[in-house]
């Protein structure tokens, strides 16, 4: 049930002038990389060095607001502040099997691009035949769905991202 991660940007650094016995990346190179990742909208950067068969992954720190929301709440919503639109993360509050498909309507509860209202059912998590409704806790547009119909989910697992509107 590992959370899905977006593919990292992989850079094969030209790492010259560093003897094999030393660290494969120097402090100044590392500083440079951190500056690069800070200024860009890239969230993850992987540096590989063939001779050492080593790699270094740099990940942009999550905004503080998002972190504290996750710590503080049992709510199913975590906000991520990006430069443009506020993005809310809908997370699983039950352990069970996630369903995107509505049996009664014979269509999906929601899909990417849908405009949804706060409180609207966007899926369900079934735990031994007990359906638990998944409701949007903000209004907005679904920008991403991280889980598939029928996939088992754990507590706190991100289900969907909603661009607040």
């Amino acid at each position, binding site marked *: 049930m590992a959370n899905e991660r977006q593919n990292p940007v992989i850079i094969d650094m030209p790492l010259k002038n560093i003897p094999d016995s030393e660290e494969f990346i120097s402090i100044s190179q590392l500083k440079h990389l951190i500056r690069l990742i800070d200024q860009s909208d890239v969230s993850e950067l992987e540096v590989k060095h063939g001779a050492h068969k080593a790699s270094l992954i740099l990940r942009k720190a999550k905004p503080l607001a998002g972190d504290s929301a996750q710590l503080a709440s049992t709510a199913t919503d975590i906000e991520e502040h990006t430069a443009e639109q506020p993005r809310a993360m809908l997370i699983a509050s*039950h352990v069970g099997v996630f369903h995107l498909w509505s049996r009664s309507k014979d269509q999906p509860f929601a899909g990417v691009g849908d405009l949804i209202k706060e409180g609207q059912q966007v899926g369900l998590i079934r735990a*031994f035949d007990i359906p638990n409704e998944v409701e949007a806790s903000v209004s907005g547009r679904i920008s991403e769905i991280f889980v598939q119909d029928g996939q088992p989910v754990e*507590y706190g697992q991100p289900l969907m991202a909603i661009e607040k509107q």
Partner: protein
Amino acid sequence: MFRTILIANRGEIALRVIRACREMGIRSVIVHSEADRDSLPVRLADEHICIGPGPSGKSYLNIPNILSAAVLSQAEAIHPGYGFLSENMSFAEICEDMNIAFIGPSASAMAIMGDKVSARQAMAAAGLPMLPGTPVLHTLSEGLGAIKEIGFPLMLKAVAGGGGRGIRLIERLEDFEHTFLLAQNEAREAFHDDGIYFERYLGRARHIEIQVLLDQHGNGIHLGERNCSCQRRNQKILEEAPSMHLPANIRQEMGEKAVHAALAVGYCNAGTMEFLVDEQNRYYFMEMNTRLQVEHPVTEQITSLDLVKEQIRIAANQPLSIRQQDVHFRYHAIECRITAEDAEADFRPQTGVVTQYITPGGPGVRVDSHLYTGYEVPPYYDSLLAKLIVWGETRDEAISRARRALDEFIIEGLPTTIPFLRRLLDHPGFVRGETYTRFIQEEAVALGIDNAPRKAA
């Protein structure tokens, strides 16, 4: 045998069960809270499933999420560890209904032994000696009438209490009314049950408990006793086996009676019968713990048995692999409970990041702990950090080894009870084996914890 076991616990005991599973070739699935995401058991289990936020009411006690995790991971059995759901009868019952083996006694045996009053009745009927006591009472006038036969000092116990909670000593008749009403109010608030009963209080009693193991085929054995007299506010601090004062014939008699009594209520799996033993080695049944206990490694070291593996085999309906005559005792074992508490400040619980963690080693030393350098002790749970278990050919050797191991043990970043345990091991009374249940309370000054506000426990 099971292919997959779900572990509904955390910390060192979760790790203990994972280790047994690994050695038995069983896949382990751990459920955990968000606060334990980076914990060692989560890292070492074959699979991990988050079941809720930090507070245990929403995670480790969240029965629907735990059972859903069991179904999703195709677990055939659940090990509840100690605490949390380990003595929760309805949880055991639901597991039975769902055809998931609960690694512990049946819900029906738990129902009898989990309630102190019905346990006393059943155990008295099965031939265990009881301290003179009263039935459950709800009013002050009932109480005043019932205690005439017992006399003072006496112990007041809340029916629904446990783990040292809801117990008070009343020394004089003058204190009775006040203490009774106070305790009843507390019990009502804490346990939603204001039932109270009384027992005669033994001044210099030792806490001696008998470990039993019973399979589902009617076989039962006992694994000797543990002396758990080093307690503070009814919480065990240090346990040892064997008890140096208990003659072999009494050990055997207590063990046989304990097994007989457990069989009489249809008990199976591991369990512990707790007794108070007075200075004349007269013993009285107190209660039964219907689960694996924190201090089980002490018994493991003197019997060379693996109690967790035995529990798993029993739950898988296998007969006991050994008979009573195969149980042999060797060594003297001592367990020290190292907790995140400041002993000099009334044992206030501490949280923080472990900045350095170096465990002791060498002959006769075992450490059961979930700690590592960089581990953050979360605020939500029990303060147990590590169990140091040592053993030697004699009690003296075990004590020297325990001192040596505590001196080697480094846990930095937050206060622990290591310095206090070290003083306890140096105390002449402890060295002579003169420990009884009020030993730590009465020796608080010598043990360097005298600034703690003292009240009758």
